[in-house]
């Protein structure tokens, strides 16, 4: 069947190679690996057969692009193709104008001035620039960085790189609900602390850190405060002045924008200085040289403006769906634990652990729901997520954690279906599990003396 599709496509490409309206897509090897069976329309991919496209509940990994953002990008792609840094002709002026409009849109979302926004290729680049750039600039006087154990991998890896260069890094532990202990933060600050980096909303467990308090502590001790707000902007109200942040990383593809663009907010009053990561012609205030991706930036700006308008409406809708999901699962199952604080949480993120269930088999059974597990996004090994380990979650519970990401486009029916599928799979696995039988009989698993063979 797949060979017929391939040969038909090849025939079509050979007879109409330059047709302006040809809709043929050259079959890559990856696409050829997906054999769509046209009779019953089930999909066979990577050895797994599913009856249709799974329902998408992984909004923390990325979000689908909003049609309104898509529309805003199209005109710019077709006509505004000039280099925004060309100063001599209209093509450059038009493209620059588009970038400046997007800059104003992004700045309005976080209550900053447009001159403080630097466009980058994503939140990872922004985090790298912030952490390494600040420390390299102040390397004569400041040698210490404070961050948490639950940060995103790019921040932790940048800190490890700094450690290899000779800086000292303190990784603050978090409480069992995922929030930073403010007393420990105060104690950890030293006279030679150059940066405090704490993410606003965690991508795995969804807890919202007490940003205003942390900002106040950093202001008292005169330490620059960097936050990774990729999961926070457009979802919770962000105000850089109230939070007293000096640097903030943002990403477009988490707020229904295009992938490949992000921004770094760099405060101008009082000025924070950085060493740029990308050297070159001095674009973007000298902090990020290189031609900006005009089309992506326009999409980012449109996504930010849209997020500002829709924030309240989306939050109300997503909160209702989160309650529906949690209550639906809790009604039918016991032994369900929510990882992270329930009070200080972004509503679209629900990270659940199911007791007495094996993690990998649960994920294999949930192929019709696109969710993420605690261990998958961090490493290729079978180690459970470092975030859950930092929360103090037991190894067996950390392995069975599932992260449900709810977004603007999720429907009630999708949530009901996700509840149904999860409950069915967990019940099936628990029925097979001898551990669960023992728990039902009242035996305490932790105090069993397993006999040695």
């Amino acid at each position, binding site marked *: 069947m797949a060979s017929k599709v391939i040969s038909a496509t090849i025939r079509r490409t050979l007879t109409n190679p330059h047709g302006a309206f040809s*809709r043929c897509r050259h079959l890559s090897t990856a696409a050829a690996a997906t054999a*769509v069976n046209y009779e019953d*329309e089930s*999909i066979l991919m990577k050895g797994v057969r*599913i*009856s*249709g*496209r*799974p*329902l*998408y509940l992984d909004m923390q990994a990325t979000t*689908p692009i909003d*049609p*309104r953002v*898509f*529309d805003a990008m*199209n005109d710019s792609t077709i006509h505004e193709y000039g280099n925004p840094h060309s100063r001599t002709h209209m093509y450059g002026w038009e493209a620059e104008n588009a970038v400046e409009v997007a800059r104003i849109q992004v700045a309005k979302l976080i209550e900053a001035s447009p001159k403080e926004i630097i466009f980058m290729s994503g939140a990872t680049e922004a985090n790298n620039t912030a952490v390494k750039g600040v420390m390299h600039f102040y390397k004569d006087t400041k040698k210490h960085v404070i961050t948490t154990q639950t940060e995103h991998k790019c921040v932790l890896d940048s800190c490890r790189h700094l450690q290899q260069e000779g800086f000292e890094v303190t990784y603050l532990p978090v409480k069992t609900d995922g929030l930073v202990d403010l007393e420990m933060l105060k104690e950890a600050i030293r006279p030679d602390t150059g940066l405090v980096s704490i993410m606003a909303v965690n991508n795995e467990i969804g807890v919202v850190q007490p940003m205003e308090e942390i900002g106040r502590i950093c202001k008292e001790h005169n330490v620059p405060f960097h936050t990774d707000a990729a999961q926070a902007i457009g979802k919770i109200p962000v105000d850089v002045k109230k939070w007293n942040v000096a640097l903030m990383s943002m990403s477009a593809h988490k707020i229904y924008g295009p992938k490949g663009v992000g921004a770094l907010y760099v405060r101008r009053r009082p000025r924070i200085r950085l060493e740029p990561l990308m050297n070159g012609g001095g674009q973007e205030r000298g902090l990020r040289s290189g031609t900006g991706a005009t089309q992506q930036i326009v999409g980012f700006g449109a996504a930010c403006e849209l997020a500002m308008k829709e924030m309240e*409406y989306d939050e109300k*809708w997503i909160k209702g769906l989160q309650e529906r999901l949690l209550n639906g699962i809790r009604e039918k199952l016991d032994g369900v634990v929510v990882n992270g604080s329930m009070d200080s949480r972004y509503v679209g993120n629900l990270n659940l652990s199911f007791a007495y269930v094996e993690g990998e088999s649960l994920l294999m059974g949930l192929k*019709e729901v696109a969710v993420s597990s605690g261990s998958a996004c961090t490493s290729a090994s079978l180690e459970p997520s470092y975030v859950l380990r930092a929360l103090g979650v037991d190894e067996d519970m950390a392995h069975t954690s599932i992260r449900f990401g709810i977004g*603007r*486009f*999720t*429907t009630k*029916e*999708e949530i009901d*279906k996700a509840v149904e599928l999860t409950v069915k799979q967990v019940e099936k696995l628990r029925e097979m599990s001898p551990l669960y039988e023992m728990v039902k009989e009242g035996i305490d698993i932790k105090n069993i003396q397993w006999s040695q063979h």
Partner: protein
Amino acid sequence: MVSRSEVLSLCRALLRAGRQYPDYNIREYTKRRTLDGFRMNKNLTDPSKVNEAFAEAKAQLMVAERVLKVYLAYPPKTKNIMEVKLQ
């Protein structure tokens, strides 16, 4: 000041455009957002505000119809599981 029939026909046009999207999630979202959007502004009395809301909705209709043409030009290759089960 726009008349009631104009508002209703705009709402119907938006719903009609939303219904044609091949993607399940966007289809459901346009229906929900249109109805909620019109319901939220139901009790506006100030003529300038009414005209402003009407103009915004009209702009959204133009966006929806334009984007619909592109989305229909690239139909999805696989059916969404929600549509398969609903059969």
